[in-house]
């Protein structure tokens, strides 16, 4: 573990050193490729400018995830409860994935305007599918013997869902969500590129147009950090939810 950490840190240092040195030795203009030191200082010094935009983008992503969950979870449960529903809807779901969602971005501006609604929708649209699929696969992955057990115990569908299927599918669900949240960030940013009044995507476009490349890089740095934060946030939620792996104070009798 120590060795791996050492190598990772060394690689990072080497990479940034080479970048920094190249910028200085070849005197690359700052509006083409700023050195890492400038990017870092811009990211910190321009924080008062960047932060409100980051909050907007963050809000869009969180709302997008919320919207996707609000639709995807009931849909996955419904498709699991009624196989005919799954049969009827799965072609639509697959087709919805065949549409390049990013290509919808200009239309969403037409329909939903320059506000955050279109960006939320965009993020939700991207993350929705992996959640439905991972949940459904999780439900279906439940072993036959457990189903027979619950059947003989006289449990109804909803009771079985609560006690068996849902906890069973949680690890799958979180795997889907992890992939989803990182892509949702891309969705929100592209939504902002196409037309927005606020947000990190908007800020990037503005900075790019004014050749403030250091600010563009600083925004990318912020976006990466937000992505990491989301990733670890989901990981933290996963740990809390799949409590039987690390916590034993849980009871159905309570």
């Amino acid at each position, binding site marked *: 573990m120590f060795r791996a950490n050492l190598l990772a840190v060394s690689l990072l240092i080497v990479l940034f050193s080479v970048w920094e040195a190249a910028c200085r030795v070849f005197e690359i203009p700052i509006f083409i490729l700023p050195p890492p030191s400038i990017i870092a200082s811009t990211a910190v010094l321009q924080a008062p400018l960047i932060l409100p935009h980051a909050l907007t983008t963050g809000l869009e992503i969180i709302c997008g995830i919320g919207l996707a969950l609000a639709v995807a979870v009931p849909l996955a449960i419904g498709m699991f409860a009624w196989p005919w529903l799954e049969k009827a809807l799965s072609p639509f779901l697959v087709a919805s994935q065949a549409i390049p969602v990013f290509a919808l971005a200009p239309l969403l501006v037409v329909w939903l305007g320059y506000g955050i609604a279109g960006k939320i929708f965009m993020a939700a649209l991207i993350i929705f599918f992996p959640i439905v699929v991972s949940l459904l696969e999780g439900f279906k992955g439940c072993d036959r*013997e457990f189903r027979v*057990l619950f059947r*003989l115990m006289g449990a109804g569908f909803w009771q079985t869902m609560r*006690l068996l299927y849902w906890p069973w599918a949680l690890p799958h669900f979180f795997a889907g969500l992890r992939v989803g949240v990182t892509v949702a960030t891309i969705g929100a940013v592209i939504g902002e590129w196409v037309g927005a009044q606020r947000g990190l995507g908007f800020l990037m476009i503005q900075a790019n147009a004014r050749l403030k490349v250091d600010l563009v890089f600083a925004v990318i740095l912020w976006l990466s950090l937000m992505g990491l934060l989301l990733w670890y946030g989901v990981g933290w939620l996963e740990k809390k939810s799949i409590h039987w792996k690390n916590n034993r104070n849980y009871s*159905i*009798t309570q």
Partner: protein
Amino acid sequence: MMFSVSGLSKEFDQQSIFSELNLTVARNRFAVLIGPSGCGKSTLFDVLTGVTSADTGQIRWQDTDVAHLGDLAAYMHQKDLLLPWFSLLDNSLLPAKTGGEDMEKAKPRAIELFSRLGLAGYEQHLPHQVSGGMRQRCALVRTLMFNRELVLLDEPLSALDAITRKSLQSLLLLLQSEFDRTLLMITHDVDEALLLADDLYLLSAKPMRVVEKIELHGEKPRRFDSPELLAIKAMIMQKLEGDIEHVPC
């Protein structure tokens, strides 16, 4: 008589799985259905538990006709089937929970069974924190918490390692001797059937039917040193193998 099956038939894809199947299981007996692999035992199990329904035939429980035994039988499996997200106690309380029982009354009953089966003090442990043998005993507590006289076992124990298998076999016998349960086991493992069964039903390949009913005597768990038992085993093996030759593969 605990329950009986008469004239049970089931077709699947126009192939007869079993037809005119008759079976009677008496109270507090250990009945074992044994037949070659793929003879339709699982389908019979599905019909008995109500997962699918038979085309024709009757299932009688004591003196009444029933559609299936799903609400009347408890279920044991070679796997312990404990849910990893519930404590041992909560796992054993699942039948009470789904059956809508008063949990305040069910809980002391479960705790008593825990101490009776040597699990006292492990109520709040999670399944992965205890040994395989303890998990099996917890599964037994859950089976008893069903409050049902009949216990169905749909998989042979032969997939288990020798020690776990032995301990599970003795737990099953305990179920019969101490807790007065009636057991119906479906298996293809001859040795296991001979060790555990009181009534042994020999099944044929598709279409499945009862070829012979053998009553076994002697104290259980039995040992394989009696010539009588070995003779029965040889006879069963011969019949099962004779059957397998006719099965197109």
